[in-house]
């Protein structure tokens, strides 16, 4: 590699992003870490350092609830990530074909992302309404009915469905951008070698999409492990805590004025650590794969 730039140039390039990143992300997080070791409860003149007591309480008194929430988060995240990425790749390939109306399809499939979580939550609450919602009217045609989001066995699958519905277009767009970054020459070369149809997808498209797949999977895992706003609107963690993901659990603690904000901060940090561990595992695995491929 020829090095012609001055050594400070790359630093200058990342500086604006770095400053914004530190001020608005790293610094507040350190603040949260600090509050998690206090009994802070909104009164900035009256709180004290209590060390790891909040963490200890979370891991003793609330351990059952915490483990339950982690389990639900993992289930939610696993299914969301798998379904969303499989559909995302398939849809991206389909709308990348030279077919009539592909622009319309792309626009429509991405549409839910434009709406924002609050609106999406409201829309689906209405559709799943067991009395007058269309879903139950359709079920009625088959002579059956269901309490939908009120059924503790059905609530989690439905929430997963809505999460996938919301973000599959996002995954598709990222994959699409990845597909368009693959030069046509490679396919043409592949054609000569007999790689067409499924083979071309399997041996050319997928390997070249690898970095984007990695990003996409990571983003879906993080997104789905963090999620609380959508669940807050759809089920608020119920029924019977069947949709009480970790994010939702943390949020409920902030909202519940019995817990202190210090305690809620500690739960927030625990939430973060859980995600961090998962991400590190996934990323290590993917990096190994990438090295093997290249």
């Amino acid at each position: 590699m020829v090095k012609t730039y001055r050594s400070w140039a790359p630093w200058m390039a990342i500086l604006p992003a770095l400053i914004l990143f530190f001020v608005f992300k790293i610094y507040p997080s350190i603040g949260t870490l600090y509050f998690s070791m206090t009994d802070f409860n909104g009164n900035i003149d009256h709180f004290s350092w209590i060390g790891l007591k909040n963490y200890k309480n979370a891991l003793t008194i609330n351990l059952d609830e915490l483990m339950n929430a982690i389990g639900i988060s993992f289930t939610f995240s696993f299914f969301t990530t798998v379904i969303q990425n499989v559909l995302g790749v398939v849809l991206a390939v389909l709308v990348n074909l030279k077919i009539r109306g592909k622009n319309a399809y792309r626009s429509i499939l991405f549409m839910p992302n434009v709406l924002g979580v609050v609106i999406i939550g409201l829309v689906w609450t209405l559709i799943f309404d067991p009395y007058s919602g269309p879903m139950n009217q359709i079920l009625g045609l088959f002579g059956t009915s269901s309490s939908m989001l009120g059924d503790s066995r059905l609530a989690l699958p439905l929430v997963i469905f809505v999460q996938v519905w919301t973000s599959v277009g996002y995954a598709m767009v990222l994959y699409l951008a990845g597909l368009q970054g693959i030069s046509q020459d490679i396919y043409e070369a592949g054609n000569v070698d007999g790689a067409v149809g499924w083979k071309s997808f399997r041996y050319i498209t997928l390997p070249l999409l690898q970095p984007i797949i990695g990003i996409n999977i990571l983003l879906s895992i993080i997104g789905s492990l963090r999620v609380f706003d959508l669940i807050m609107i759809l089920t608020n963690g119920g029924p019977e805590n069947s949709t009480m993901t970790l994010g939702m659990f943390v949020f409920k603690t902030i909202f519940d004025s019995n817990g202190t904000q210090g305690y809620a901060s500690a739960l927030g940090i625990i939430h973060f650590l859980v995600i961090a561990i998962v991400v590190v595992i996934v990323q290590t695995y993917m990096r190994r794969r990438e090295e093997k491929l290249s």
Partner: protein
Amino acid sequence: MNQTAKLPYALVHVILIVFSLLMLLPILMILNIALKTNTEFLNSPLAIARSLNFDNFAEAWKQGDMIINFKNSLIYTACSTVLTCVAASVAAYPISRKHIRGTGFLLGLIGITLFLPDGIVPLLFFMKYTSLLNTYVGYILLSSGINMALMVFILVGFVKNIPAELDEAAALDGCGYFRYILTIIMPLLKPAITTVAMLKIINVWNDFINPYLYLTDKEKRPLTSGLYLFVGEFSTDWTILAAGIIIVVTPLVLVYLFLQKYIISGVSSGALKG
């Protein structure tokens, strides 16, 4: 395209139409509700609106102070999108190419912060003591900053796809570092930047809670905060809310359609082939 010549196009259309309907119907329902009177809605939420009733739109527009808020939304969205796109793509190149020491650490840090909890109170103190609280500049910086990491993270992945040989060729030509990023890398990144811009626009435009926390003056709030007024715990005025939703969402859909075309034109003009 040869790669999928074997796929029957009729089947492709069927699949895509099914998915499109799945995406569209809920949104059409909201439009339907927005056109109903409240009594009509409460008694038959799903029937097609009997007549076109635009009162809800007028009411939502008036109640939500949407004229001022509309202008604010435009400012916040436009400024933070431009700021994010420029800062993130300029930063993505050196990180992706490992031009600075500690790239691995930085990437790890970026990765970690994608899921850090939000620290509202500490941020509030920062905003207050730097006099950024309740200012346009402050809110623009904040909305650019809070998910800068995500945007850089996405772009880094795309920069990897640009062949490194290009860098060396440019270096031999004596192209300056910034000039190289701005004139060679950024145009190549156009589809990716458009994607990032779109995500950012959606993100800022739809933010419900941050405007309340960091903008204390109603006059400085964006469009969504007007919409938020209709979501009550004890009574959600669904018809007006639905109309508000349509008002808030329409500009976004239009911008999205515009950018969607832009992506395609960027690709078809062969920008990628450089």
